[in-house]
């Protein structure tokens, strides 16, 4: 039986991207957030008369799992950049693949990395905290919304890498996106109306907030009311960004290097 082209491309993407550098970015960075922020902020909260660090870690876990969607997206964007830089994009595109298949290969690899990374964070949190209570439906909700988030951020990074012509510029934008999207979201802390208005707006329009809220709702056994509009909006945004990324990429000039 012939293996579908996208599966072949995903196999290749996984093979060439499971290197220490990528794993550190994909797993190591979120894991460090989980440990350092979990214990650091947890201790501060407890010292201020709040709940125990374990309680904050329980709050943080679905947030960090959601953050995997962003990290997986950046890895997807980097794949396209590396393939362009090292000649493999043109080499693959003169092979038995369409441009769309190549793009979807990266997209699904991002999704795979997002889900796998979130699972590793879940296991890591369980080992740190000692227990985690989540229903099967709750876990499926969390992983489902992280999957959508992975496609959104994968598409966003592919769109950016399709538009930006310089590798240095792409790297700078990528770091900026990771930083802003991560910290202006509900990954680490709840949304508060005490925030300055610009930050409130940033929180509200940040797709990672939608992912984190729904994932956390899944863990808590009840989705927040805002997820009723945030999740459908996330789906619509994902479709739009995916369509834009596809359009930019399919029309782009592919050069032999």
């Amino acid at each position: 039986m012939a293996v579908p082209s996208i599966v072949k491309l995903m196999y290749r993407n996984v093979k060439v991207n499971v290197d220490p550098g990528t794993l550190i970015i994909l797993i190591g960075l979120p894991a460090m957030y989980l440990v350092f922020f979990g214990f650091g902020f947890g201790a501060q909260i407890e010292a201020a008369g709040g709940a125990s660090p374990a309680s904050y870690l329980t709050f943080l876990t679905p947030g960090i799992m959601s953050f995997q969607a962003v990290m997986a997206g950046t890895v997807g964007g980097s794949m396209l950049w590396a393939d362009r830089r090292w000649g493999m994009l043109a080499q693959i595109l003169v092979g038995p693949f369409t441009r769309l298949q190549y793009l979807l290969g990266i997209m699904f690899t991002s999704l795979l990395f997002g889900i796998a990374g979130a699972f590793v964070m879940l296991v890591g949190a369980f080992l740190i905290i000692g227990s985690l209570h989540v229903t099967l439906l709750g876990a499926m909700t969390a992983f489902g919304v992280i999957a959508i988030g992975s496609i959104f951020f994968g598409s966003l990074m592919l769109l950016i890498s399709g538009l930006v012509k310089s590798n240095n510029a792409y790297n700078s934008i990528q770091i900026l996106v990771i930083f802003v999207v991560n910290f202006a979201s509900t990954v680490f802390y709840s949304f508060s109306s005490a925030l300055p208005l610009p930050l409130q707006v940033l929180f509200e329009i940040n797709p990672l907030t939608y992912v984190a809220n729904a994932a956390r709702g899944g863990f808590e056994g009840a989705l927040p009311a805002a997820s009723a509009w945030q999740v459908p909006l996330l789906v619509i945004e994902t479709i739009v960004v995916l369509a834009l990324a596809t359009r930019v990429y399919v029309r782009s000039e592919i050069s032999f290097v």
Partner: protein
Amino acid sequence: MAGQGEIIAVENLKHTYDGKQYALDGLTFSVRKGEIFGLLGKNGAGKTTLIKALTTLIKPTSGGLRILGLDPRHDGKEIRTRIGVVQQGESFDFATVEGNFDIYGVLWGVPKSVRLQRREELIKAFGLQDVRKHRAFDLSGGQKRRVQVARELMHDMDILFLDEPTTGLDVIMRRELLDSVRERTRQGLTVVFTTHNLEEADYVCDRVAVVDQGKILAMDTVENLKRLYGGKKTVEVTLSGGDAAGFFGALREKLAGCDVKSDGNSGVILTDDPKGTLQRVLEMSQAAGVQMDWLNIRKNTLEDVFISSVGGTGRENNGST
């Protein structure tokens, strides 16, 4: 459009990147099955753009193009399943040499048993045994080139496009590669081959097209081109002493119908009558009192064809179009 036995048919093919200047400017040619077809040209002549069009990487602005009887505008993927391409630049995955072969085999859907067997054969044939566990990016330029060419042979194909495949290879490996390409054409493979190296085009190509500024300036078998463009023979002259500038100046004046080019003590004379010219040069050297170090009539080479058709300015642009 395609005639019998024609595996590539190109008719009045044009391509422009900016809407103003044509990188391909009305090319018409065909390539027959089992042929090694060479594309000769300076940097920026349009060779790589042509390869990109032939391998479906770009859609030409206008003109007819059929590959394997198929239209690249509609049958791109079908064409790509039947061609192999070795790019001019590096193209590697972050993996070992073996890993690059394996990944490529998987991408091309080569069954595992065939993949492993071919990998071993190619690693041996291209002398890569010592570096098989090394990362492809860590290899020397010549080794990388060998990996790239060998890797392309992991899968079956009808047409192989080689964009300057011998860059960085030593003389022996270059010759072995060209012989290997020649051998594969006996089994039905068709090869389109771009090069700057006129000697290797002369050695391996059945026909060549000289391309410049997106146009074909000359196209025929190597021998016919040499005859056509090199109807004149070349007399080589090198002096060991005396007034070289004055002597070559006198040759220019006295040798009617000959083209005399000189550089210091050396010169070449393009002539229809090499024996007569040789005699005149000897007589004039004795009369002028210059000492002759070397005097020779040589066969025309593809280089003469190239210089005749493109113009031997020696100036080349950097980068490819």
